[in-house]
């Protein structure tokens, strides 16, 4: 269990003045459970990396308290500050920070050599296999691509047998291709590591893919905390203003139909059909259904191209993402979906809470969060 409470004021400076940033104050607190990935999510400059530095011990906030697994790592009120090297919070940085004068293998072993004897964690071969870096072991960091470097950095952090894994926007400096290459390794790592992970990012697709809990930050303050699924339904948060705003659903792969090129996924409110995927049957998945991709029909439509047509009930209308649009909450069994409609459509269809309607889902974004194949 990780508890964090910080207050820190950044001084205004010439650098900040050039960015027209008067400096801001961090004033936040959150907690994350024993295991799983907690994502710190927010726009650039909202203070998320500062939080990570404070947890790692690389920054001493003006006021703060950090407790990990019952051990107090930082308590400014009592003058307690455990040095980073004693905290066992391995960090993966945005720029990998591999030691250029050491080989990949020596880099990997750097943390391992300094881990306490009783620390548990994966073995060298296991991590190398997990991250697919076997062929790089004798090379130097200088010759590696960005994606390879980040994978080595992941391995190095894992092998340090930390109690908490910190990741500071590890994919932010990679191009789309490299990100796509590395993200699956992160997913694998999440399952294999069984470690609490604090993951800082401003990319929502990473959150969808990896996070269990989400801490939403803005201008140094926590806006909301909760599971990814729960927060995705909150229309009062800045999340809702995004183009990809919508409900995130936990699903299970039910079956494949290769002949028709389709895969069936089950969720709390029923089933969805997607183009064929190769995840094994029974594995967990997560789907994001963009509110823009959900249409509402007051009568069951016929002859529709979309497969996914589900009976639903309107449970709420309101919270306008823009002047002429509104969110409509739809209950499908115990699950909820969001639909983004124009006010005009709402008026035209005469939608009211409690009304039985049909939810028409045009597209689904599949974010793997399942166990590895």
């Amino acid at each position, binding site marked *: 269990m990780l508890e964090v409470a910080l207050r820190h004021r950044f001084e205004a400076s010439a650098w900040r003045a050039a960015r027209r940033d008067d400096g801001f104050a961090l004033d936040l607190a959150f907690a994350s459970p024993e295991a799983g990935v907690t994502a710190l999510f927010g726009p650039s400059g909202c203070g998320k990396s500062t939080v990570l530095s404070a947890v*790692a011990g690389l920054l001493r906030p003006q006021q703060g308290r950090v407790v990990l697994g019952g051990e107090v790592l930082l308590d400014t009120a009592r003058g307690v500050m455990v040095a980073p*090297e004693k905290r066992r919070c391995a960090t993966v940085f945005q720029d990998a*920070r591999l030691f250029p*004068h050491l080989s990949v293998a020596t880099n990997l072993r750097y943390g391992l050599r300094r881990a306490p004897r009783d620390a548990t964690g994966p073995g060298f071969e296991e991590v190398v296999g997990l991250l697919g870096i076997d062929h790089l072991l004798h090379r130097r*960091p200088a010759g590696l691509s960005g994606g390879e470097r980040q994978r080595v950095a992941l391995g190095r*952090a894992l092998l340090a047998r930390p109690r908490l894994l910190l990741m500071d926007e590890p994919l932010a400096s990679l191009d789309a291709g490299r990100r796509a290459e590395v993200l699956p390794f992160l997913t694998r790592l999440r399952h294999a590591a069984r470690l609490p992970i604090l993951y800082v990012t401003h990319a929502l697709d990473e959150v969808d893919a990896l996070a269990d809990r989400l801490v939403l930050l803005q201008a140094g303050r926590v806006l909301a905390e909760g599971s990814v699924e729960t927060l995705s339904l909150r229309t009062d948060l800045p999340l809702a203003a995004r183009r990809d705003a919508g409900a995130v659903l936990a699903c299970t792969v039910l079956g494949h139909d290769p002949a028709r090129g389709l895969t069936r996924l089950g969720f709390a409110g029923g089933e969805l059909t997607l183009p064929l995927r190769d995840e094994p049957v029974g594995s967990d998945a997560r789907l994001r259904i963009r509110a823009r991709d959900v249409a509402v029909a007051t009568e069951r439509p016929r002859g529709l191209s979309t497969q996914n047509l589900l009976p639903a009930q309107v449970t709420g209308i309101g919270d306008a993402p823009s002047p002429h649009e509104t969110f409509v909450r739809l209950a499908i069994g115990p699950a909820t979906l969001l639909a983004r409609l124009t006010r005009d459509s709402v008026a035209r269809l005469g939608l009211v809470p409690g009304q039985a309607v049909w939810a028409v889902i045009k597209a689904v974004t599949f974010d793997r969060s399942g166990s590895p194949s």
Partner: protein
Amino acid sequence: MSLGLSPEEWTAVRLSLEVATRSVAVSLVPAVAMAWVLARTRVPGRTLLDALVHLPLVVPPVVVGWALLMLFGIRGPIGAPLHDWFGIRLVFTTNGAALATAVMSFPLIVRAVRLGLEHVDTGLEAAARTLGAGPLDRFVTVTLPLMSPGILAGAVTAFAAGLGEFGAVITFASNIPGETQTLPLAIYSATQTPGGEAMAARLAAISFALAVAGLLLAELLARRMGRWLGRG
């Protein structure tokens, strides 16, 4: 292969190499420590310390030699205990010549090492911390290897400068053939003696060759070091 040099002349060559090497060897650790204090700490009086370190560069070498005589001579505040407790004499000895040379070239090493240190990415040191490395550990495993090009550059510069150091050596250690008569002193003596021009020219040529050899060696080492640090 005598290259036409007399035994006395070879002694001067050998002595120069010895003095220059000893002076670098004795300066390296203090120079690294000083570079660290100047670049990484915020102790009060840093600027004054920096100025003191650079003093040998701006003050006439004879003055440095004279100051060393006052401090390390047999009646000086440092020289007296050295002699009385340890039996160490510095004036008239090769060690004294090495000390004078070391003091004169100290600012050169400190500058180069400091530059090398300032180029070390502190992010790498932070990464080492998060992986469990304490201060000495990360200094030895991360910082020192990464600043080694600076240390090498400093050592080479100091060696080359040390080969040519004259004023401080002759004032502090005096001109004792076989003990302190390095190449510059031998060349000087030769130029002072009527008819000594040929000897001076021979010794000067040797001096030059040594300096060039030193620079070539340094270049070779620098390239090897660059590859080792992963810079192509």
